């Protein structure tokens, strides 16, 4: 059995057949996971200034670029093993760099509240065994974490939920669109307008406290009644909700306080984003947006989007991430004017503009290690294929030695 790195569910029940040193078939993996494990069409090659180069020279050049930078940044690591993340943080510390990851414009704030114990949470295994009421809020698990409902939440016959979804579990979707997950939550889909989460939460809190809210009174009272009766509930918070309430997490903590039988689960995409957040939190007290100046200093101005907009970085190391793809094009233009070092198993939009590219092994397929699941559980990753690609960990280690 192998572990899939397609998303932060880290499904560890995957079977794989190997042919010609590539994964030919997988069993149990979802569509996304199978594609991840089978690998990309365009492998990254080692290069300097977009010209093929041996890997030692590329690492040496990358080190030189970082040495010459006054304000470098290390970004990404959410698709790297925990061991590589530890090295990445070490590298940032050594060169007094800013370090940030995709959680900066994803679920970082939510994970920070969870690590600060401001929100109650649990393991996915508890949900599988005990949960009777499931709320998918701004989260389309069916498309983003496709085995969530079948492995952990809705469909399994858990220890205390032997009658499964037919009788023992109830699933609710709160979303701006009728997502594939909402379709499964038949009769319990609450459609809200974009940015309508705040009003919905306030109305739900009123209903929970026994008042009749002005907003959608009948539905709110009905929902409050279901939530109050739950024996073990879970709210799966997707980025739909996180983006909508922005920094106003007091709203979510306020709601959670009124629902003592509910746990909050961050719905994470990248397979080891939580691992990065936990590692940096342990070291600095913050989950992202940190600049090392001896100690780690946190500020929103260290968010990748702000550093690009303000042109406040003069070199960037990207590990297992594609900011040119995932950030607004209006801010990513700064990347064209600074040296970029791209470490990735595959060619990406970022690698195509990078000064130095260093191909890495695909973790969980070509290199082993560990990662942190979306609920905080540590899961092992095995190596399935033997080849010569260096792991992220090894590349960062060599980069650190050369810098």
């Amino acid at each position, binding site marked *: 059995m192998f572990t899939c790195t397609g998303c932060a569910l880290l499904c560890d029940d995957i079977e794989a057949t190997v042919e010609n040193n590539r994964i030919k078939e997988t069993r149990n993996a979802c569509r996304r996971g199978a594609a991840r494990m089978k690998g990309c069409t365009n492998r990254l090659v080692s290069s300097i200034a977009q010209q093929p180069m041996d890997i030692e020279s590329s690492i040496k050049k990358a080190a030189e670029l970082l040495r010459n930078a006054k304000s470098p940044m290390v970004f990404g690591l959410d698709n790297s093993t925990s061991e590589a993340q530890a090295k990445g943080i070490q590298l940032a510390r050594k060169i007094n760099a800013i370090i940030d990851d995709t959680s900066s414009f994803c679920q970082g704030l939510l994970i920070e509240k969870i690590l600060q114990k401001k929100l109650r949470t649990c393991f996915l295994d508890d949900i599988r065994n005990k949960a009777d009421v499931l709320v998918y809020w701004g989260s389309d698990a069916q498309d983003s974490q496709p085995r969530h409902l079948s492995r952990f939440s809705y469909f399994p016959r858990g220890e205390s939920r032997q009658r499964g979804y037919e009788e023992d579990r109830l699933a609710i979707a709160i979303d701006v669109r009728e997502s594939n997950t909402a379709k499964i939550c038949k009769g319990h889909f609450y459609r809200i307008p974009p940015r309508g989460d705040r009003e919905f939460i306030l109305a739900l809190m009123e209903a929970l406290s026994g008042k009749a809210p002005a907003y959608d009174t009948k539905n709110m009272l009905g929902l409050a009644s279901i939530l109050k009766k739950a024996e073990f509930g879970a709210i799966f918070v997707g980025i739909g909700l996180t*983006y909508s309430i922005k920094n106003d997490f007091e709203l979510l903590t306020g709601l959670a306080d009124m629902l003592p039988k509910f746990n909050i689960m961050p719905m994470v995409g990248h397979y080891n984003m939580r691992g990065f957040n936990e590692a940096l939190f342990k070291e600095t007290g913050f989950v992202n947006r940190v600049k090392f100046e001896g100690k780690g200093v946190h500020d929103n101005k260290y968010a990748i989007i702000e550093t690009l907009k303000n042109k406040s970085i003069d070199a960037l190391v990207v590990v297992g991430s594609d900011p040119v793809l995932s950030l607004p094009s*209006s801010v990513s*233009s700064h990347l*064209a004017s600074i040296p970029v070092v791209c470490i990735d198993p595959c060619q990406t939009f970022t690698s195509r503009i990078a000064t130095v590219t260093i191909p890495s092994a695909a973790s969980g397929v070509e290199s082993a290690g560990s990662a942190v699941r979306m609920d905080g559980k540590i899961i092992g990753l095995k190596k399935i294929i033997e080849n010569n690609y260096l792991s992220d960990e090894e590349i960062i280690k060599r980069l650190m030695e050369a810098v």
Partner: protein
Amino acid sequence: MGIDIGKFLKNPEFEILITTFRDIFQVEALERDRFGEEYKKLSAIIIMSKNDLEKMGFKSGDHVKLANNYGSVVVEVKESKKNEPGGVGFMVNSPWSNALISGETDGKGIPEFKHIMVRISLSKEEITPIADIIQLTKKSQALF
């Protein structure tokens, strides 16, 4: 030979709010080959309700230009298979939606990925190629 007056007339523009979502088929295509046709085909689309399509005079398969102060792209319009009330267009998260997003975050570091106001109009142009969106690729244009 008559004069095609239509070509001198600007297509009517409408305002629409776009929110982004994830699609497992598009993510699969991304994993496989983010430079490929399949990823483009599954990304460069806007899904709209039947009501909105009728109101704006579009039909599934039409090309539409989406534009605002931050960028402009041409994508294919598709009618939602779901019973959407309208007023909101849906785009899967991709460089085509990112081309329309402001970098302004009030210093908070999170752009409005799910709340994008655009002007929408019928277009005869081709779907915007990825290289045009990622304008910063000037130094390596040939590679795209």
